[in-house]
């Protein structure tokens, strides 16, 4: 312990965690906390489908184009939200239209992503405003969310949440088994672009707070963690939403007192949820895996025996 640390200088640990004047700070970022909670809920919901449809890479691709859109808006002096939503939707549409099969999709994303990032870097280089704005788009910031912005964010979140709830079963069915889903009347081809749009909107909102590079921490990690601990659909959704919300709100609460960007807090909490879930999942699986295999062999043997005696 050196003297500088103990004396409350904004150096060392106090740069990372600092709870002085916390009450006043909370009042200042009141809107951001609400925004974080809303995003947590929507991000947790969306990430369940991102996992089911195997789309983490697409999320990353969309967020880079969303970043380009936001940077363009910054340069043009337009609202950043509009720019990032526009960038997201363009990316989501292109990926949805060109990449129906997984292999095509990955190459389309691989091509789009660096281009988006490059465009964003160009726009930022041309921009002469506050430097914090530039960095924030990539790595996140607690923007002092004002009321009109908050209503935008909540509005878009409601649209995404309602859309997801409506498409819930057809989306799961189509992700799981497209052939049978189509045979049962699910419009499989139509669902994919519609979901990409919902995903694009979510990504655009997340970029505002966690930054383009780290969107996956709330649009993929929460569900990935949840799926490690349970195979029940309902519980997966509840856990995923919980993990995402805790990461967002917890990250904001820890970050406001410090001089650092918000994203390391959010990503660390989110990652800890995942590590915890993996450990728990493994601890529960230990032993039960071998038992599971033996179980299957026994089931098989019994099933076949039944048939032998039943000509």
């Amino acid at each position: 312990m050196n003297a500088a640390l103990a004396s409350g200088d904004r150096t060392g640990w106090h740069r990372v965690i600092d709870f002085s004047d916390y009450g006043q700070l909370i009042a200042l970022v009141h809107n951001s906390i609400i925004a974080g909670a809303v995003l947590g809920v929507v991000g947790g919901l969306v990430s369940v489908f991102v996992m089911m449809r195997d789309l983490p890479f697409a999320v990353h691709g969309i967020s880079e184009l969303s970043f380009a859109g936001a940077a363009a808006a910054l340069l043009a002096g337009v609202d950043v939200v509009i720019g990032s939503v526009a960038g997201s939707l363009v990316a989501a549409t292109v990926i949805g239209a060109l990449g129906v099969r997984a292999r095509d999709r990955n190459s389309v994303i691989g091509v789009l992503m660096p281009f988006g990032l490059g465009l964003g870097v160009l726009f930022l280089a041309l921009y002469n405003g506050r430097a914090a704005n530039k960095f924030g788009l990539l790595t996140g910031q607690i923007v002092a969310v004002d009321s009109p912005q908050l209503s935008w964010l909540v509005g878009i979140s409601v649209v995404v949440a309602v859309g997801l709830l409506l498409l819930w079963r057809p989306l799961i069915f189509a992700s799981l088994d497209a052939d049978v889903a189509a045979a049962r009347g699910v419009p499989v081809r139509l669902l994919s672009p519609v979901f990409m749009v919902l995903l694009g909107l979510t990504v655009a909102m997340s970029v505002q707070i966690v930054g383009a590079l780290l969107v996956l921490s709330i649009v993929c990690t929460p569900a990935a963690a949840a799926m490690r601990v349970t195979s029940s659909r309902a519980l997966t959704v509840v856990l995923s939403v919980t993990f995402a919300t805790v990461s967002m709100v917890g990250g904001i609460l820890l970050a406001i007192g410090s001089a650092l960007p918000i994203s390391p807090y959010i990503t660390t909490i989110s990652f800890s949820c995942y590590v915890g879930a993996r450990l728990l999942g493994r601890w529960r699986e230990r032993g039960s895996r071998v038992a599971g295999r033996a179980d299957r062999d026994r089931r098989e043997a019994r099933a076949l025996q039944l048939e032998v005696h039943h000509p």
Partner: protein
Amino acid sequence: MSDGAVLRLRDAAIGFGARTLWSGLDLDVAAGEFIAVLGANGAGKTTLIKAILGLHRLASGHLEVCGSPPHRGSDLIGYIPQERRLAPPAPVRSRELVGLGIDGQRFGPGWPRRGWSGRDRFGRDRRRRVDAVLRAVGAQALADVPVHLLSGGEQQRVRIAQALATDPRLLLCDEPLLSLDLNHQRAVVELIDQRRHASGTAVLFVTHEINPVLPYVDRVLYLADGGFRVGTVEDVLTSTSLSALYGSRVEVIRTEGRILVAGMPEPSEATT
């Protein structure tokens, strides 16, 4: 159960764009009938299934399922696809897979409680139905097992339960035995056969290999080279009949209750 045909095709033709796969097909499938659909790759077997499901339009002619034109997502039809390992990136339980067969095409998340309309669509009735079909295929023990932990045979069993969940009048099976070993092949065919005897469900069974279904088949639809033959195994699977269909010498050999077809010309194009 003689209230008209479950499936009726009249002068039906199918193709993609300008290319016709087959035409002039008349077929009536009665309740409880087991029909094997045979033929080379690209002969239009799977396309026939798609047409019955309402996913592909006939080029010309008439198609009726239980007296009405085909439409997507009909509860009158159950569909069993090829055995393809389900390895979703997320765990899914057998029970959920079967449940999706009942109402997976509906909007909404399917709230697990009694609907306010009082019709109890998603509540206990649904659960009971899922349990009942799983029991019917001897898969009650698999209900809560995630599908990626099932063996190929077990997975097909659950798929049959899924197809039966709407209590269909017609079961469409598209190569359901592919990549199963002999024991599981027999188990799957027996389940399907039991169902048609118990409930009078008609079965259209697409396969490239007649022998596993030979003891159960009532009639055969053999598609090849733009033409077809319909009739009993004895009528259709003969050297003369198939040679005429293919327009070249085809040998049909019967030995110890098995049928071997030799000398089939290679299909010029494979689209299915």
